């Protein structure tokens, strides 16, 4: 048996959240990833974000594809249903699940192989449909499970562990997401929990398609000199545009921010994103400017992180489809079956 159940020991000092859950209630099984893997930090950030938002764990559906990152939903929110689908197809499975029940939180976890290569099509279409989800791409630029081949997000010029130099252009999922109409677009770094946790919280509370591209170095195959997705490289080139703080709907917004350097974004559910402007010239509500900014800084070798774009009142898939408010999976025969009499009327129309 290669899974290991985590012992449920509650330390008395663990603080319960508004629902009475402690952080441990948001954990899952023990990770089987390599020690030091960036993905485990992201799992920890998800745990933290859900704990802080006082989400009922079972109201989350954890969806993933195939790859190291896609294994991680087993390692957090043990009381939530998980769906480890097939390679590159998480977005469609998530979309279907979201169609069936609009009331759960859909958390999709994928990797760069899963999202940028085999699943690029599904990645694109889920975003352009505005599926109400948090889509986290744990991006390390390599195929870990098959031992270190380049992925499509690897930068041209990056060097593999075996010394091979990558020549193809990199796919930038964040630029793509902006073009495709995603309404919450963020990039972060697995080593920057302070930035990542509030970004995940904001994404969970966002209505519409939220995408987080999280650079997550592969300690085994992509953390050497010459890699552009190593801990050292990312730390050196990270250019945060803002520092995000998440303020839940029930907390009063007080004037503890300096106008001009801090920006408040009110989300659909009444919560706020408090953005400390690290780059005063950056405006996260302007999709076109965001795209240009990203391109300019990427050309200079800078990795732009933070909340890159947000449209707080975006429409989502259910708005587009016109589905009723009651989740489809709770409808009963009474609402669903038109019955024998109605069928008689239909028969009459085909005589």
């Amino acid at each position, binding site marked *: 048996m290669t899974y290991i159940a985590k012992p449920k020991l509650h330390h008395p000092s663990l603080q319960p959240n508004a629902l009475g859950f402690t952080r441990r209630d948001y954990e899952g099984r023990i990770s089987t990833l390599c020690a030091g893997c960036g993905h485990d930090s992201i799992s920890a950030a998800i745990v933290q974000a859900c704990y802080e938002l006082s989400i009922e764990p079972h109201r989350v559906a954890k969806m993933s594809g195939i790859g190291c990152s896609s294994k991680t939903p087993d390692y957090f929110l043990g009381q*939530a249903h998980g769906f480890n689908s*097939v390679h590159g197809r998480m977005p469609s499975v998530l979309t279907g699940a979201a169609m069936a*029940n609009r009331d*759960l939180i859909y958390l999709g976890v994928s990797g760069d192989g899963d999202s940028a290569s085999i699943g690029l099509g599904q990645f694109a*279409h889920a975003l352009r449909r505005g599926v109400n989800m948090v889509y986290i791409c744990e991006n390390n630029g390599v195929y870990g499970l098959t031992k270190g081949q380049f992925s499509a997000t690897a930068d041209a010029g990056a060097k593999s562990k075996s010394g091979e130099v990558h020549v193809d252009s990199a796919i930038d999922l964040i630029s793509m997401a902006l073009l495709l109409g995603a309404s919450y677009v963020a990039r972060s770094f697995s080593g920057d929990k302070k930035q990542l946790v509030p970004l995940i919280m904001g994404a969970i509370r966002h209505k519409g398609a939220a995408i987080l591209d999280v650079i997550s170095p592969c300690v085994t195959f992509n953390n050497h000199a010459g890699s552009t997705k190593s801990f050292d490289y990312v730390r050196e080139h990270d250019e945060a545009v803002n520092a995000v703080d998440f303020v839940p709907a029930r907390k009063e917004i007080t004037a503890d921010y300096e106008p001009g350097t801090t920006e408040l974004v009110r989300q659909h559910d009444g919560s706020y994103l408090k953005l400390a402007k690290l780059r005063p010239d950056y405006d996260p509500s302007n999709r076109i400017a965001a795209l240009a900014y990203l391109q300019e800084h990427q050309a200079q070798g800078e990795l732009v992180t933070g909340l890159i774009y947000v449209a707080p009142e975006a429409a989502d898939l259910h708005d587009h489809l016109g589905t009723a408010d009651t989740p489809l999976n709770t409808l009963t025969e009474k609402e669903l079956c038109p019955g024998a009499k109605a069928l008689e009327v*239909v028969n009459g129309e085909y005589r």
Partner: protein
Amino acid sequence: MRAITGPLAATNDFVVKFANINGSGSASANELFARSILRMGVPVASRNIFPSNIQGLPTWYEVRVSGEGWLGRRGGVDFMVALNPQTFDKDMASIEPGGYLLYDSTKPIPPEKFRPDITVLPIPLTEICNKAYADPRQRQLFKNIVYVGAMTSLLGMDLEAVKWLIAEQFESKPKLLAPNIQALGFGYEYARDRLKDRCKLKVKRQDKVGERIFIQGNNAAALGCVWAGATVCAWYPITPSTSLAENYNRHASRFRIDPVSKKKNFAFLQAEDEIAAIGMVVGASWNGARAFTATSGPGISLMSEIFGFAYYAEVPAVVFDVQRGGPSTGMPTRTQQSDLLLAAYASHGDTKHVLLFPEDPHECFDFAAAAFDLAERLQTPVFVMMDLDIGMNDWLVEPLSWDDTRRYDRGKVLSAEELEAGKTFGRYIDVDGDAVPYRTIPGTHPSQGAYFTRGSSHDAYARYSEEGATYVAGMQRLLRKFETAKSLVPKPAAREAKEKARFGVIYYGSTAVAMNEAVAVLEQKGLPLDLMRVRAFPFNDDVEAFIAAHEQVFVVEQNRDAQLMKLMVGECAIDPAKFLPILHFDGTPITARFIIKEIAARAGLAEAEAQEAAQ
């Protein structure tokens, strides 16, 4: 050979074929012709034989008029309406000796160009329309109504019945009514005055249609999905399945609107491809909705990986495969039953899937509803194996029916109360001994019933496991679950011959209508046959018993490789030498004459008898 004794004469028993150019507006006129005959109480079977094209390529519409009620294709053409110069020679050649040919004589064809053994009925369609209409589009469109008018007179049909139908058709566009009636009159009067008594094929009012309806299988299946409570349809356009999804949307938009909010109690989504479509279906089904997709062979190929996932992780899914001619792009607008093996074992690894074979649109409705019950009861994909012939042609069938006391079988789903009551939950534990485990729907209970759905090897608690014994136990249980399926799927329909029969015949799907006619003729010729119409895979034990009870068994199919036969050889304990495959796979629906000829010859009927039987 039938002796040639002059022009064919028949009442309510002949075949008319319209040879048109695609995109010329002929389809609705031809359908009007068929429906008019139905309104006279005479059964018809119509087949649209169309190209994968929007405009310009040849298209045909065949109408079998059968007072006896035979609804399959007979084979052969008695009356050809030849309006396509591209195919004129071939169309003329296909007419039965003594048959009729109607053509547009605006530019007369010299008499020596026609076969001497047929009756030619010249009507200057273009001239009539050019005289009556100035608009080029109208000149073209009304030509179709003019020939329907002429046919009405030639076949002695009820002019009022045709007018009545036109009035119904243009109820919402009254402006178009008068010109259509006028065009009908032009043709009717021309034939009445100039071609009087030239045609000895007649339609005579009968009372043989009754309560039956005239409907396409795709439409009936879509209605079945609405009545069965399907709430999610994810699909990708592909001929010949597209109208199934589109009809679902149309019917659901009518019957599934929340009375208060006026919003939809269903979700209809056109996916980016078939892979995404089946991914959505599986996601929605996993989350407790009844979900389906409609596709054709190429879509089944693309969806295969996810079928394997759904089989192994045990997620329900309903898939309509409206089969067309394969392999590859094949013949997208022609019919075949050539996806059986693909669907039965879709995906890598050891998999087996439940297949249903509806014989007509009526059964498409019933099997659509059954498919959702089966998929949820068995927690596995269920394929409704239709074909273009059933899906896209109007068939005369018994009215659709629904029993209001019927309840959906939502299968083994644990509720929050059941979980609360302390029922032990392990996603893949065989609690009841039928190899079907219990499942939970996400979000049901705060602390119980969560599990991790995965396509990787798992134990009874859905935990990852690479233990050989654990894997084997899971795979063996799936095999036992397939045994359970045998008792739940529709049983085969059997019919014994009056006399003891040496031969049995196994067939399925759209072949049934032609088979019914063929067996009646063969029995008349002294060849009794026992019949078994297979309605599902896995085969229940009756199929094996039927095969065992006969010296030899014909298996009649519409594919090259005898796919059902192979499935039976692989899945039943039978000597393959018992089977005699009868295979029709040119893309057109199988005909009664084809079956008669093939079975007669192989059953050893004398050549002369076989020839005669086939006429």
